[in-house]
């Protein structure tokens, strides 16, 4: 490997999507990785096993996904920037740890390389598992890359958001993106923006561990810094004491979900393509945005005003941007590689503003440009 022992492999590469995630994690400062073998996420673990020791980080092959995700939470509380990678079925197990990380406000990054149930074909069928998987109330931040470059870029952003908001962030990858090789440009270290968690500036005896700042996020000391905090899943008050009290419970979960929702402008990102005068708007995320773009271009060549709203952040839902699109459009089509899941969110947001439709494909294959173009053509008639 070129640039061995370097944390940031500045330069131009032709790289696998899964490897780009690893390099993005390293660039973001990741120093702890744990994972359990599962296809099509294995390349992440394998490269991490090589890269982590090179940069002074830790690598753990857990006995299962539960071990991996909980090792992450322990390491993160000890001060690590921690990541795991799994695929759909493995993510099921990790929901338990994600629920704990949400409740105890622990920054970590989870990669889910979506695969069809029991097989490794392409799919986007985990999009709802991301949102609703863990028990208890939560708002996850979920980013969906559509290319190898985005796999790198979004991984850095995932770490930054998790550190800033003390919450788990998911990179929703897909077989398609994970096992594809493309050009990747890794910038100079000084060009990469890194966010680190805020630590307390006051001594332990005066520190109230779960009292939040104006962003809704309390500072987080490392284990061993002398703050002696109880990090519990159970309802806890500002002091960290386990307390069953309806007010404590309500305040805690209002804040934990609120810190994600009220920072919408900082968290939610979309990309707009040909939208200015578009009458038929495609809403898509991940790999499906690629055929959407070429289909929209084809439609334009044929005189149909089509455009694409690409969801960089799948969760929380980009309600403002989708509604804005709906206000100008005649019809909003959700393009997805599953039976039609995120479409429900788009329909909810568009209700009363525009007609909606679904362009779904659940055959382990990404849509072709022509398939989407045909749907645009039909909608324009």
């Amino acid at each position, binding site marked *: 490997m070129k640039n*061995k022992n370097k944390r940031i492999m500045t330069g131009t590469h032709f790289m696998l999507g899964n490897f780009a995630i690893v390099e993005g994690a390293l660039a973001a400062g990741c*120093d*702890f990785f*744990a994972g359990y073998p599962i296809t099509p996420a294995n390349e992440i673990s394998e490269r991490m*096993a*090589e890269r*982590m*020791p*090179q940069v002074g980080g*830790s*690598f*753990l*092959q*857990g*006995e*299962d996904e*539960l*071990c*991996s*995700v*909980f*090792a*992450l*939470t*322990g*390491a*993160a*509380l*000890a*001060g*690590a920037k*921690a990541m795991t990678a799994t695929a759909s079925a493995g993510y099921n197990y990790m929901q*338990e*740890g994600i629920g*704990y990380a949400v*409740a*105890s406000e622990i920054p970590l990054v989870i990669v889910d390389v979506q695969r069809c149930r029991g097989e490794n074909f392409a799919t986007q069928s985990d999009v709802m598992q991301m949102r609703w998987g863990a028990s208890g109330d939560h708002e996850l931040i979920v980013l969906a890359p559509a290319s190898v470059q985005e796999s790198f870029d979004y991984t850095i952003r995932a770490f930054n958001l998790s550190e800033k908001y003390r919450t788990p962030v998911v990179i929703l990858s897909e077989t398609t993106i994970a096992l594809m090789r493309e050009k990747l440009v890794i910038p100079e270290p000084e060009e990469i923006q890194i966010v680190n968690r805020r630590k307390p500036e006051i001594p332990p005896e005066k520190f109230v561990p779960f009292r939040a700042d104006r962003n809704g996020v309390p500072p987080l000391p*490392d*284990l*061993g*810094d*002398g*703050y*002696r*905090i*109880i*990090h*519990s*899943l*159970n309802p806890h008050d500002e002091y960290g004491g*386990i307390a069953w009290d309806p007010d404590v419970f309500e305040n805690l979960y209002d804040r934990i979900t609120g810190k994600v929702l009220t920072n919408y402008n900082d968290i939610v990102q979309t990309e707009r393509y040909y939208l200015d005068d578009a009458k038929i708007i495609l809403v898509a995320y991940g790999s499906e945005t690629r055929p959407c773009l070429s289909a929209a271009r084809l439609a334009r060549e044929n005189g149909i005003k089509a455009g694409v709203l690409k969801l960089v952040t799948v969760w929380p839902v980009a309600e403002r941007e989708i509604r804005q699109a709906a206000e100008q459009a005649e019809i909003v089509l959700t393009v997805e590689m599953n039976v039609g899941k995120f479409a429900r969110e788009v329909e909810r947001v568009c209700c009363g503003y525009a007609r909606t439709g679904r362009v779904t494909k659940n055959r382990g294959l990404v849509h072709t440009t022509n398939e989407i173009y045909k749907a645009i053509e039909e909608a324009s008639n």
Partner: protein
Amino acid sequence: MKQNPLRRYLRKDCLPHFFCPGCGAAQVLNYFVRAADQVQLDFDKLVAIGGVGCAARIPVYLDAEVLHGVHGRTLPWATGIKLHNPDLKVVIFAGDGDAAAIGGNHLIQSARRNLDVTMIVVNNLNFGMTGGQAAPTTPQHMKTTTTPYGNAEKPFDICQLAITAGATFVSRWSPAKPLRAIKAIKNALQHVGFSLVEIICQCPTNFGRKALSTGDPVKNLDWIKESSVTVKKAAELSTEEKAKRFVLGDFLQITEPVFTGSSVITSQGGA
């Protein structure tokens, strides 16, 4: 009123504790602070971990760094902590459910790796917090709320399991032998590697009332006492007789390299 000098290891305002009168878990809390005091454990560098259950509440009273509230995942937490910061002292308080049921595989794998932590298993022979259901440690034929005709299953021997899997320090005592229990915890805290101390505990409220037909803590402890033998005496018993008893003793203390990660660059080779 003069305060117990060991009170300084507990959080302010944490008492009264939530354990039932006569509960063994509360005694283990007592043993731990005594052992910690004897070895002058630095509580700023102590991470005390509990999963879910009665025993899992023990760390919540300690004035240390505490992780609590997920069933069975104590050792994965500890693994992440120790790999990232080996200087922290990690002590796990697990019930028999945490250790041998839902977290059983984590116990086996952590022992195999010789993770440098101390695990104190408070084995009260049933799921106490949830109302006295059978556990993998419930003796055969004993009645619990989920074995109304007597437990049809054979119990786990947690210590033998840990030894076989690769633990490097293993002891088992009970509140009927408090000084031995404290000493075992003290030695475990000083051990480098995976140390496990199992304390067979009375649960008067649930196990006692169902299995022993008495909620009297003293009678419960008497039963444990009568059912226990030392390693020495156990050697004279038949396998059948031994299976009916709790064998108490300090079983193992050896030195092995500790776990520092699954992929590590060593001087013998590697990248």
